[in-house]
């Protein structure tokens, strides 16, 4: 199988969908002439021209709102937020307009928009640039939320997102852009709402998504080698729709759960998962559900300290040992 970076995989998905559907338009700050702040859209302007790949001023509420409006007429905008952190500037457009228009119109209007960009900490850009809003977004019925961890998933999920008829928010990670992985050749589609077992095991289920999958895989290796523990890793891939069945199946096998998420803990994705697991699989649990999240404070700048604020392999290992004890 060919190997591509996560960045390239996203770019390929964008290019293929631009090719396939004349209604697909890419829009965002620096996406065209500058080739993207993180070079995800590199080369797309040259290939598809400035009708399909559009630079916008720094005006998130304006251009995201315009994208939502265009999507109501059947245009399929794929909007780049240079950082998901800037979604707050367009909060009203995203969560009042995109999320509600279908409902408030009694199902008459659809909003097939995709908003994508990086949402992560770990690059020392401080509190204003390090938000991970998947929980906030997923709190709004009407929207879909995707957080891919590998190149193949990123490509397959983005293609599904672009073809979806509802607003899909696609959260990438600047620290994953350079990560390489095998990507199936030809048309590669991953449906939204299907979790993926990234490692099989029998002693502990780690439910996770995004870059935390990588930390969890590293910790699982150490657990296997040094502690003889066999860990199963469930990568949610999509936060909403949520593949709770795959999670419950794994819990029924291992009876122990650790949730790992790059999220502030209060009302996080893990909070929702914990509720569902205890509600639907209480009798399967041999230990309380445990969770490893970001240390509960705004993102600190200081580089070595930020590493400790976020989930990392060592912190996952420590938390896993607590659940296994």
């Amino acid at each position, binding site marked *: 199988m060919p190997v591509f970076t996560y960045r390239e995989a996203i770019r390929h998905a964008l290019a293929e969908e631009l090719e396939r559907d004349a209604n697909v338009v890419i829009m965002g700050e620096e996406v065209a002439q500058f080739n993207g702040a993180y070079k995800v859209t590199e080369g797309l302007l040259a290939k598809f021209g400035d009708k399909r790949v559009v630079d916008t001023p720094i*005006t998130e509420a304006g251009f995201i709102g315009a994208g939502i409006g265009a999507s109501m007429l059947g245009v399929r905008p794929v909007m780049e937020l240079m950082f998901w952190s800037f979604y707050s500037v367009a909060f009203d457009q995203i969560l009042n307009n995109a999320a509600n228009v279908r409902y408030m119109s009694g199902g008459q209007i659809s909003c097939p928009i995709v908003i994508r960009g990086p949402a992560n900490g770990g690059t020392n850009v*401080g509190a204003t640039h390090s938000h991970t809003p998947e929980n906030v977004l997923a709190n709004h019925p009407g929207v879909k939320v995707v957080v891919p961890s590998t190149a193949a998933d990123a490509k397959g999920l983005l293609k599904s997102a672009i073809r979806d008829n509802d607003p899909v928010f696609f959260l990438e990670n600047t620290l994953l852009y350079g990560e390489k992985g095998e990507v199936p050749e030809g048309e590669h589609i991953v449906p939204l709402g299907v979790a993926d077992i990234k490692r099989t095991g029998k002693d502990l289920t780690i439910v996770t998504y995004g870059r935390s999958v990588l930390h969890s895989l590293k910790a699982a290796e150490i657990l296997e080698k040094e502690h003889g523990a066999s860990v199963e890793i469930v990568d949610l891939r999509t936060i909403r729709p949520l593949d709770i069945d795959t999670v419950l199946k794994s819990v029924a096998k291992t009876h122990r759960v650790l949730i790992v998420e790059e999220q502030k803990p209060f009302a996080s994705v893990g909070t929702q998962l914990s509720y569902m697991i205890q509600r639907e699989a209480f009798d399967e649990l041999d230990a309380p559900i445990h969770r490893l999240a970001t240390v509960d404070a705004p993102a600190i700048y*200081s*580089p070595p300290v930020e590493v400790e604020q976020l989930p990392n392999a060592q912190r996952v290992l420590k938390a896993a040992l607590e659940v296994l004890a």
Partner: protein
Amino acid sequence: MTKTSSATAAKKPAASAKAADFGQAPVNAKLTAAQKIELYRTMVRIRRFEERSLRSYQAKKIGGFLHLYIGQEAVATGCCSLMGANDHVITAYRDHGHAIAVGMDTRALMAENYGKVTGCSKGKGGSMHYFAPDKNYWGGHGIVGGQIPLGAGLAYGIKYKGLKGAAMAFMGDGAVNQGAVHEAYNLAALWQLPAVFIIENNGYSMGTSQARSSAGQLAKRAEGYDMAWGQCNGHDLYEVRATVDEHLRMAREQCKPSILEIDTYRYRGHSVADPDNTYRTKEEIEEYRRTKDPIQVFQNLLVAERVLTEDLIAEIDTAARTEADAAADFAEASPFPTVEDIQKDVYWEADNPSERKSQGRLFFD
């Protein structure tokens, strides 16, 4: 110059020809030689600090983004030199120049860049998020345009407290298109707040030229809000001071807000990570360096005025380099915050437990 009419402001001819006139403006004419030397010194200190920061960034001592102010020194230096006790400043992430101009200690600034606990924000904010309320300096803000309503709020606070002062709210040419900026303009005009909205127009927002990002003339948008506006050359410190002084007076004395667009230029990429090779030519940068460098322009003026001598120029430069190196040494030698520090400075009550009034859990790990 301040305009309230709909006449379009012609761009003023840059540099020396007119510069002498601005030197005669009252606010400049009253400067002593020593004060002029200090203004010059501030610009040199900013530049050397930025160059030192760049080296530290390249040596991986600084993380995240680093937005350098090199080329724009006359703007922050000129504006902040006019601040009185009740005048306040707020700016975006390109904040080092303003910080030095209001008198913050460069050691604390460099330590902040390094993420050290001795930094001006204890290593929590980083290069984009400097703060010094004791110097009337309210940051250092990372979200483009987000600081401008705060600037209007500072002006509101000044007026509310019955003080005679003004708030200078700085933004870039790319920030003017944010909705929050326009909401702030309207509030300031509607409530007649003593605010001066200063657009540091360096021609580009990241890789996008002004022509590709903004319809119409930036400061002229003031007319839609019945606000006064002006435009000036930011390469000449005298011109900056003469013009900003008018705007500040209007704010302090008549409680009238205004927008001032100051033409300037950044020599470096948007941030240190910007390869800076897609959206402008090397010749353009060279041309600015050669003909409009704010330090050189002011140096020429002060040499002509016999305020600066070759020896003094060299001495100021050496002192600025020494200061920047000392700041880097201080930053290097300082400790990082601890993991326990992550959850300090989040809530007032958590930091002052003996005075806590609320109950219940504040943190959720």
